[in-house]
């Protein structure tokens, strides 16, 4: 048997394990915990998208929380104002955030590094005030309430949801929906990274000058990466809106952008597999911190200390660790004569 076939078999095995885990995890945990896991799925999708941009193209974004806001508000506005069924708004939310991502990617044509970070930062800071300003569409400081204003469009409000003949609780539905989209997004990201576009992205990250002289259209590549990453953030934002059934300016603060970046770096930039750890990290750590003590400030202190500790122990994130662990295995599989 060729080592190539062995490699493929290994990948199929991993895929099967992931699929089985996806299908059966809700049976092992409580209803409430599936909802929390669905929350982690939102982070997962946004972080995979951010990783495409930051990990593979080297563009730092401090504004991905704002792109999630675009997605979340698109969903909420369509549901509340246009009476769309909530789940069908997801594609449109992705497209809307993708377009906005493309537009904020435009300064990337001229700016690089921290200056681009400032541009995205400006966007993240501006979004809450803009949302309040255009209150006709966004409901101002109150935000939009899916549950109160358009209860008929909220999937699973009656208690159960029936998908392909299986009926399940709303929380299980949210879990399957979020992680289902998460897995699809992951596979797409994986294909992008493996393919020609991924090679171009990495070339831009490693050296803009060298990439340009090899014929890579820098401007196009960067804005494309921004747009693609925006689609992920938009879908994540839409799912967040569907899960919490309300959007307001406080749902998408600068802190959210920061959490996404922390998740991506903890997961390991340039590694897609690590993103799942990054997502669980930012979803669960703030909660776990409150177990240490609920005294004022202590949870934040613990959360920050955990971030620092992870960075000191794993400077390249979980992904870097996985790569190091996997190397002997893959070397053995591929290099044995």
């Amino acid at each position, binding site marked *: 048997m060729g080592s190539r076939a062995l490699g493929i078999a290994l990948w199929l095995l991993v895929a099967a394990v992931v699929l089985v885990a996806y299908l059966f995890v809700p049976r092992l945990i409580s209803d409430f915990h599936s909802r929390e896991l669905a929350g982690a799925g939102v982070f997962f999708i946004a972080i995979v998208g951010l990783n495409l941009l930051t990990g593979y193209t080297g563009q730092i974004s401090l504004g991905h929380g704002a792109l999630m806001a675009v997605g979340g508000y698109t969903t909420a506005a369509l549901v509340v104002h246009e009476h769309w069924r909530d789940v069908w708004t997801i594609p449109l939310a992705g497209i809307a955030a993708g377009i906005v991502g493309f537009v904020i990617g435009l*300064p990337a044509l001229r700016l690089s590094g921290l200056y681009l970070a400032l541009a995205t930062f400006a966007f993240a800071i501006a979004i809450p*005030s803009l949302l309040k300003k255009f209150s006709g569409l966004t409901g101002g400081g109150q935000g939009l309430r899916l549950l109160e204003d358009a209860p008929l469009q909220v999937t699973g409000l009656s208690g159960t949801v029936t998908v392909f003949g299986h009926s399940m609780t709303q929380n299980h539905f949210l879990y399957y929906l979020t992680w289902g989209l998460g897995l699809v997004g992951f596979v797409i990201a994986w294909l992008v990274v493996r393919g020609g576009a991924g090679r171009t992205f990495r070339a831009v990250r490693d050296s803009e000058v060298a990439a340009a002289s090899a014929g890579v259209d820098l401007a196009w590549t960067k804005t494309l990466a921004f747009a693609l990453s925006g689609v992920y953030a938009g879908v994540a934002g839409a799912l967040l809106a569907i899960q919490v059934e309300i959007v307001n300016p406080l749902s998408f603060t600068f802190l959210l952008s920061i959490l996404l970046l922390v998740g991506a770096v903890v997961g390991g930039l340039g590694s897609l597999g690590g993103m799942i750890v990054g997502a669980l990290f930012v979803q669960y750590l703030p909660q776990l911190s409150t177990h240490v003590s609920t005294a004022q400030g202590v949870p934040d202190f613990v959360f920050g200390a955990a971030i620092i500790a992870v960075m*000191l122990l794993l400077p390249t994130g979980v992904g870097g660790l996985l790569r190091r662990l996997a190397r002997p295995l893959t070397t053995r599989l591929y290099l044995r004569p």
Partner: protein
Amino acid sequence: MILAFDWTQLAQQVVIGLASGGVWATLAVALVLIYRSTGVINFAQGEMAMFSTFIAWSLVEHGLSYWAAFLLTVAISFAGGVAVERAVIRPVERAPTLTVVIVTLGLFFVVNGAARWIWSPETRSLPNAFSTRPIAVGGVAFSISDLGTIAVSLAAVGLLWLFFRYTKLGLASRAAAVNPDASRLVGVRVSWMLALGWGLAAAMGAVSGMLTAPALASFDQNLMQPVLLYAFAGAVLGGLGSPLGAVVGSLLLGVLINLIGTYVNWVGTDLRLPVALAVILGVLLVRPAGLFGRPLETRV
């Protein structure tokens, strides 16, 4: 649009803008000090400044005068900055830039959490550093407090400049920032120079915090978050690599924001920062390295 233009009001608003810009400038210089030597924006700089301000508040509560507390806090903050660098930054000295950035984000939560843990979250206030009387200059009334704030921030920045320009240690830390390898070969302990930079940055931040707090009726642990945003914007406007640029950028930003807030009604208070950031972006699109920065060398 504006029928009778009021020059007195313009002069007053410019001075008010310079006073806030001066406070931002001290924090912006702190950001630049660390950026220049490590290529990293320290997201915890504002929180460290807030922590310093709370130390000053405690000292005042224990009976020290504002200015005695001021000087003591600057010294404590310097030591604290050095200690933070040794404890959490030095271990990631050779890690990717973004790793260091995330460490400073972690530091943000740690310092903020610690401050709320140590000092209860109720609001408090610092005594006024300056007389609240107005003073007339050429027929226009200015607040002494604004003028004093401008003077103190410029003095702090000036002292720092003298240190870098005229002392051996200052020379060595400049050298270590621009060319660490060559500096090592003449015996400069580069790693300690980074710690020195963190110490000085923390001290500058302390000045910034202690000038921000008395101007407010009350303050809490979120004191420095907006200041950090403005300082970051000012530093980028001036060109991140240049301390002088950071000062000029912050002063310009202070005046700009204050004038926009005063004369463009549509903007109001909420949109001041976004509008200012948009202006900066416009500047950056024309001059990608900021007003004073030299274009970065691109390595192939």
